[in-house]
């Protein structure tokens, strides 16, 4: 979408928000005015509080996301390589996939305590399946006809893997990585909801307890902006390293 249109849509949303709070359609307590939220945001930045919470959240998201990749990619590759393993464990994984990670929170608290492990664990669970399914689906969907081309060229198995299978699987892997990144941000607030003393999710929940909807909104805005930035950086990295995937990236809007 052209940048001008994007900016216009954001501007209209902001104008509607301003109008709703200014005209009194919605109580200022429930929906503080944009100026109030901006002022609060300024205070949070000046006091260093926002940076502290943001760094804690960023660390959790980064750790959870990287660990999810570290678990999901090898497991997906094992499933691709071993039909038997896949037949054995796929039903169990499908069962687990249906369970929202937040529903596991009470159990995770019992098993992992209320420290960082439990919070990072929630993020891992949230982004594991999109990444796992992306990698597995990518390798599964490689066109056999392209592999024939490699065979005719006299490629070895490793050459077929590196020069045909991997680049063919990359679009689906990229889609999985991008959706996974989005899910990790979504899981963040849930992970920081309970027994937390820092992080953007904590900041939001704490503000709600103090009836400070301006801080709640400031926190939500920051999470949205950080999510967008992370997504943008991932897209930029992919565009640089694999420009032919530009079309597939657009499919990955989760």
């Amino acid at each position, binding site marked *: 979408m052209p940048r001008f249109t994007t900016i216009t849509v954001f501007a209209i949303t902001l104008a509607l928000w301003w109008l709703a709070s200014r005209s009194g359609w919605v109580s200022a307590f429930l929906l503080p005015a944009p100026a109030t939220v901006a002022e609060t945001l300024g205070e949070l930045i000046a006091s260093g509080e926002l940076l502290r919470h943001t760094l804690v959240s960023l660390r959790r998201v980064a750790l959870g996301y990287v660990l999810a990749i570290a678990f999901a990619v090898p497991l997906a590759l094992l499933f691709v390589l071993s039909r038997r393993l896949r037949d054995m464990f796929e039903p169990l994984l499908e069962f687990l996939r249906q369970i929202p990670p937040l529903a596991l929170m009470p159990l995770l608290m019992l098993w992992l305590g209320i420290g960082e492990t439990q919070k990072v664990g929630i993020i891992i669970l949230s982004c594991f399946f999109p990444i796992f399914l992306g990698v597995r689906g990518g390798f599964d969907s490689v*066109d056999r006809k*392209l592999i*024939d081309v490699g065979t005719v060229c*006299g490629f070895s198995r490793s050459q077929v893997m590196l020069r045909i299978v991997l*680049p063919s699987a990359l679009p689906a892997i990229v889609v999985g990585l991008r959706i996974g990144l989005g899910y990790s941000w979504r899981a963040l607030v849930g992970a920081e909801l309970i027994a937390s003393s820092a992080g953007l999710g904590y900041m939001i929940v704490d503000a709600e307890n103090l009836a400070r909807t301006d801080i709640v909104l400031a926190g939500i805005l920051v999470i949205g902006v950080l999510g967008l930035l992370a997504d943008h950086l991932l897209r930029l990295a992919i565009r640089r390293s694999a420009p*032919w995937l530009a079309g597939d990236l657009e499919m990955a809007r989760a």
Partner: protein
Amino acid sequence: MLELSGIGRRYRVGAEDVIALADVDIAFPSGSLTTLVGRSGCGKTTLLRILAGLEQPSEGEIRRSDGRPARIGVVFQEARLMPWLDVSANVGFGLRGRVPRATAQERCAAAIGLVGLSAFAAAMPAQLSGGMAQRVAIARALVQEPDLLLLDEPFAALDAFTRRAMQNELVAIWQRRRPTIVFVTHDVEEAVLLGERALEMQAGRIVGREEIALPYPRDPTDPDVNLHRRRILARLMATPAPVPD
């Protein structure tokens, strides 16, 4: 000389064996241009895949008189280009790591020029028409400088004008370099226009053979071309088509 003797290919479908090829005995003299013609599903593509080494025969053997493995180039029914590579990289796909980079670039440029796509060397496959993509696939096969060039209905998706031009181009390349060519088609006219001989296939067997000693380039309206065409058609029509179970 490439000789096939007693080649058969069976597939297991459910509890039954389906015979795709049976008792195929053919010899392809070095530097010959042979067309394989027959209805869809008669086993032409299976035979070509066996020649390309993409499938193993269930029985029979393939021998080369000189004993050394052939450099094989294959053009499939679809272009099968790597979508992440540009035209030049697609053409040189099988050369990387085998010949020096400068030689590879030179050969790629020559092959791309041969199929008339020099202006599109940097284009991505998604930017090409079906006909252009197929020409890239032909260049990819030619750049290998193959001893054995296998083509599986490569012009089926092209418009009549491009097809005619590509047929002439293929004959010109064959006359210049003399690889052994096996060209699969279901179009009897194409089989006559291109082949020194046309082998007729029906239900997995070679059922006829037509020697076509006409000069190139051949004209579809030439009465002699029509005569060969009528003879092949008469034989293929006389053999009953297999009835699907």
